[in-house]
């Protein structure tokens, strides 16, 4: 229990040091394999910040990560490990594509219906793991791994259905325009829009991306989750269960109900990620050859965020920036972009070991007695 508490509340300092260690290890590997790490990191930074459209792309890509991160955080706060965000994302995306294509509704209403349908479906999906944990005592890590694969094959099955599958493709039909959340979608394709954009190249570049309302919605949801966790009775109860299950029970909180509720909300969040992704970017679901990784990335995001909902926004942006910027070192310097996965893995590994990070100053003290003694005195003073 102590261990978990430590992980939940690890300090900002540990996060910063872990991120630093990730970059240092990444630099060492790049250097060892004959690439200039400064050049690589420079390209990555420019690949995110150089042009407005790069920044916009980074923001677009961060949307699902923020939400799956929130999903994992939410379950974490109740002491549950939601490995299932991946499957919940899939169920959300599949439901969104289904409702977005088959239902014919007026614009804004359609978006709202798609969003809630996806969130509810994914909430039920997450609730299965919660039910198994609460009623049968089966570890949620096991059930969510199983549910991920069941979701995976469910989507692949649905994409084969005749009424849903677009002929000569490996994907479903695109959702109706009324369910799209792409900003100015109609206008930017219209005559007047194209005319205007021709004279405003920056906006033309920005709107060429899948610039959509998803990020804004994700931020609002993050704030809502922060509010629920910290300012409501429900949040208090869930956190109490995560803090000390037995004390919570003794205090009159229904632990079983809390576990199911927590997994359902976590599922809804990952499902919302899937819905926003479909409505804002992909507009359809495709046959999956392998897991897309939004859920697994969400676990890393939640860990980097230190299980804070607002931290998820920053960690999601960091993660998305790393991935998007990192993809550019392939074209410009022919370096493997997979270095990003290694860096992220190392960051998570260090976050998992707060004790090691605590030990770093001591180790430094041993190696460099003079430097650290002086520094140590400063700290004391």
């Amino acid at each position, binding site marked *: 229990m102590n*261990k*978990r508490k430590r*992980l939940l509340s690890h300090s900002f300092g540990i996060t910063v040091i872990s991120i630093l260690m990730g970059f240092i290890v990444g630099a060492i*590997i790049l250097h060892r*394999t004959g690439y200039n790490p400064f050049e690589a990191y420079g390209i990555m930074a420019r690949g995110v910040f150089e042009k407005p459209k790069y920044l916009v792309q980074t923001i677009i890509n961060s949307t699902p990560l923020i939400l799956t991160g929130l999903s994992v955080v939410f379950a974490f706060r109740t002491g549950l*490990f939601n*490995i299932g965000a991946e499957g919940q994302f899939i169920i959300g995306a599949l439901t969104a594509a289904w409702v977005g294509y088959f239902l014919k509704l007026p614009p804004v209403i359609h978006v709202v219906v798609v969003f809630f349908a996806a969130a509810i479906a994914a909430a039920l999906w997450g609730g299965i793991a919660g039910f*198994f944990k609460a009623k*049968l*005592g*089966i*570890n949620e*890590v*096991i*059930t969510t*791994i*199983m*549910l*991920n*694969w*069941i979701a995976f*094959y*469910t989507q*692949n*099955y649905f994409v*084969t259905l005749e009424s849903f599958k677009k002929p000569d493709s490996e994907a479903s039909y695109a959702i109706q325009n009324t369910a799209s959340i792409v900003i100015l979608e109609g206008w930017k394709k219209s005559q007047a829009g194209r005319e205007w954009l021709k004279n405003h190249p920056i906006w033309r570049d920005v709107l060429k991306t899948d610039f959509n309302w998803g990020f804004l919605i994700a931020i609002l949801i993050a704030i809502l989750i922060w509010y629920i966790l910290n300012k409501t009775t429900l949040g208090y109860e869930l956190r109490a269960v995560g803090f000390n299950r037995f004390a919570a029970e003794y205090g009159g909180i229904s632990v079983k109900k809390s576990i199911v509720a927590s997994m359902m909300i976590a599922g809804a969040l990952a499902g919302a990620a899937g819905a926003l992704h479909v409505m804002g970017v992909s507009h359809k679901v495709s046959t999956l*050859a*392998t*897991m897309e990784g939004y859920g*697994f990335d969400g*676990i*890393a995001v939640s*860990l980097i965020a230190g299980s804070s909902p607002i931290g998820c926004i920053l960690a999601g942006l960091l993660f998305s920036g790393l991935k998007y910027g990192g993809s550019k070192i392939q074209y410009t310097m*022919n370096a*493997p972009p*997979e*270095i*990003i*996965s*290694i860096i*992220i*893995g*190392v960051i*998570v*590994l260090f*976050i*998992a*070991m707060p*004790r*090691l990070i605590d030990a770093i100053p001591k180790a430094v003290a041993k190696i460099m007695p003079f430097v650290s003694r002086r520094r140590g005195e400063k700290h004391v003073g």
Partner: protein
Amino acid sequence: MLDNIGIIIGITLMYATPLIYTALGGVISENSGVVNIGLEGMMTLGAFVGAAVGYYMGNPWIAFLAAGAAGGLLALCHAIASVTFNAQQVVSGIAINFIGPGLAMFLSRLFFKGATMTKAIDINHKIPKPLDPIFEGLSLQDSFLAQIFNQYATVYIAFLLVFAMWFVMYKTRFGMRLRAVGEHPRAADTLGINVYRIRYICVILSGVFAGLGGAAMSLAVVSLFSPTLISGQGFIALAAMIFGNWKPQGAMGACLLFGAAQGLVVFLGGTSIRVPSQLLSMLPYLITLIVLAVFVGRSRMPKADGIPYEKGGG
């Protein structure tokens, strides 16, 4: 009909093999008390190293062992984090699942001109089928018996390892210590068993097994590494281990079940029978969930599984 059954059993054995190695890795690690969700990453790295060494050295056995070593090295990271530094084991395993595949593809791009897929190994440099000459000598190479029993060497080794693991775990002193450490590390410690050392050995061995499992895929089932080659098999092996009640023989049974589902998918794909393959592929996971629910209480994980051990801690 008989031939078809032979083909299905043959494919089942072939696809179950990589899972068996990896699930055995899970068995040994978790029985010593360390959850290893990083099997997937270790398996992926093993698959790449096996394929790469096999391609450049031309010797499948050196490649196979190199894959085991690579998995073991990655597992060492997991051991350092989770045994020495008391990391939350699931988190450290997740880190491994980023690092393993990342490293595999990174190295692939370095050694194969920027491609994440390795070049195919020459058919003569794959893991051999040792019984080939015998079946050919008896001119039985396409018979029912050959479909089942004429397998890649890695298949036989997998089953031998299951027996060896069972023997070590339940019939030797080391096995007893290993299980003691996974059940009640403090009691084991008071009896003079070095908890840390046993856990280190077991976690590293789990990586070796996972690496071998990956190579059994990339050196026998197919002859190259690609980014989607493993995709999820490490997690399937993890499920098989849980389904098999944390026992080597149980894990083997579960792997065979998962392999059979795969075998049916492959077999039916080649026939005119129209069963949605996606639903068939889903079956093992559904069955695992149902079995877990029905036999709840019967499945028993090692008591101290997942709990970091602190010498002298409270």
